[in-house]
């Protein structure tokens, strides 16, 4: 006779087992306490930043007045912004191509496209550095005026961001009913109208998710940026790294908090845009 399951004993009734609850709490504590600590210590008056001495907003003012930090932040945001746009468009186009067409070596292409995701970042960094040096792009680009001098970093970021976009958008497209497209044409729309009014809106959640992914990946990338940036160009993660080597300062905490807020706000806005507004009652 099969063992009878009591209420609350099913494999998914994790709410009723104390050890699962504990695990849940521990995992979330480990995930969020460090971030909360960072935010809390960004308001700390202590110069060393390890002991709590009192509340202040000075660190934010200092971070704001630290031109090197601001420059790094601007660079990072600019790179992330451009890299996101390019990799979203590129990724979406690749996803469409893989979804829509059949061509020779499609399977192998699909596999190779995902390589930047699995290749160790350090290898990609070295490879890109080598590439930029051999082709002479490194020298040519870093002597250009801002923001063109960021081009090599942008290229590097696009190289590892677009596969993520392509994969997200492609999985969204799997659920697309080809009859939507046929219905659109049947109702008098041209191919382009069908693309912009039916296919693109359908892809939108995938595009937004992919773009967010690309933005955050680009914003906090350290390894590849470190290899591909010129000696003069500094991004936020690289700057933080160099500052931390001389000790954690509350300014960095403040700047990091600002960065967290930016990403969280961007995510919330993106999520809002995706969920359709519920209209009417019932």
């Amino acid at each position, binding site marked *: 006779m099969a063992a009878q399951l009591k209420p609350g004993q099913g494999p998914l009734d994790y709410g009723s087992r104390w050890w699962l609850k504990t695990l849940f709490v521990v995992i979330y504590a480990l995930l969020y306490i460090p971030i909360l600590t960072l935010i809390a210590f960004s308001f700390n008056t202590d110069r060393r930043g390890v002991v709590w001495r009192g509340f202040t907003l000075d660190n934010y003012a200092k971070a704001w007045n630290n031109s090197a930090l601001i420059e790094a932040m601007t660079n990072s945001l600019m790179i992330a912004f451009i890299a996101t746009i390019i990799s979203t468009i590129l990724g979406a186009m690749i996803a469409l191509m893989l979804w829509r067409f059949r061509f020779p070596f499609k399977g192998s292409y699909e596999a190779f496209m995902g390589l930047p995701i699995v290749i160790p970042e350090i290898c990609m960094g070295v490879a890109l550095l080598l590439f930029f040096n051999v082709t002479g792009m490194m020298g040519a680009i870093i002597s250009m005026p801002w923001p063109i001098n960021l081009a090599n970093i942008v290229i590097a970021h696009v190289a590892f961001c677009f596969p993520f976009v392509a994969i997200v958008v492609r999985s969204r497209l799997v659920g697309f009913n080809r009859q939507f497209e046929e*219905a659109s*044409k*049947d*109702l008098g729309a041209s191919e382009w109208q069908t693309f912009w009014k039916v296919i693109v809106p359908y892809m939108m959640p995938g595009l937004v998710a992919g773009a967010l992914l690309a933005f955050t990946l680009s914003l906090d990338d350290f390894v590849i940026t470190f290899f591909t940036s010129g000696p003069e160009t500094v991004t936020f993660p690289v700057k933080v790294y160099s500052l931390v080597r001389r000790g954690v300062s509350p300014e960095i905490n403040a700047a990091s908090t600002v960065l967290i807020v930016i990403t969280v706000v961007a995510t919330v806005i993106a999520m809002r845009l995706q969920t359709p507004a519920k*209209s*009417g009652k019932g």
Partner: protein
Amino acid sequence: MTEPIVSIRGVSKIFPGGVIAVDNVNIDIAQNEFFALLGPSGCGKTTLLRMISGLETPTQGQIMIGGEDMALTPPNKRPTNMVFQSYAVFPHMTVEDNVSYGLRVTGVSPDETRRRTADALEMVKLTHLAQRKPDQMSGGQRQRVALARALVKRPKVLLLDEPLSALDAKLRDDMRMELTRLQETVGITFIIVTHDQDEALSMASRIAVMDKGAVQQIATPSELYEQPATRFVADFIGKVNLIDAKVLTHKGKAVTCEARGLGKMSLSTDKTLGDSIGIAVRPEKLKLTKEKPKAAGLVSLSGVVRDVAYYGDTSHVVVSAADDLDLQVNVQNDSRTGGAGVERGQKIWVSWTPDDSIVLTE
């Protein structure tokens, strides 16, 4: 016949890989007809419909709509609109935007778009749900959105691909009436694809029965039922008792034949016959009696009741006659007591008038 609105001439469709989906089909559909393409799944009826809409191109033959050859006209330029089997209501648009889509993409003025959209929503009784998204609606409502979206374009021909197959039984009956009413109000030619014979018989003014890509018969519902042209049609439309027979003599219209299990019988037919024919009799044309019927000229045979199935309004009685010949007899349950009034194993006589026998040659 006046100029047909849709004229299908020698149309074939062979898919890559050599599958013949549609095989040399010729159909003329008149203005304002409610025309049904009926057949089992895989008979090519949907492919034919898609060729009319332009979503598929014929391998051979010609499709004319309103007197114009459609060979080079893409689907978005044809005077046809389709209600898809899955409805294909755009999930990211409200009901109103779905309905107005076809007008917006073809540059109809905003004023006219608004007016026609409102009219179309009114027609399918969805005005109060205009701002809903499709995922907040039932299947029946979504289908009405698909209908309004197609009708708002005022097509010459409305194409419906299995429009009722995804609805539950009660809703299907309502929708059937609704479609017939709509067709009468808007005065547009409807072409409907269905595998459900009841649907086709109850709604259509004419039906083309298809099998394996070819048209078997084009006729009105009652002609199809009472005078099926082939065994396939007789068997596919309604229930039928099919009896094989050997032709003995054939002079003018009179035929004598040796029917399996029935012995010699005389029939009359206009058809040219070969050596063997099929005799088809509808179950409701058969009568059950306890004694051998006395009236002259009836075809009658005795048998044993093998099975009785009760359906409320009717009972279906299966009678085993001699030589493994089973006949189904549908009996009207016209009194509240007794049902069919027969029991399994009972000896019984089955009879019918010879005129109710349908002679089938192929």
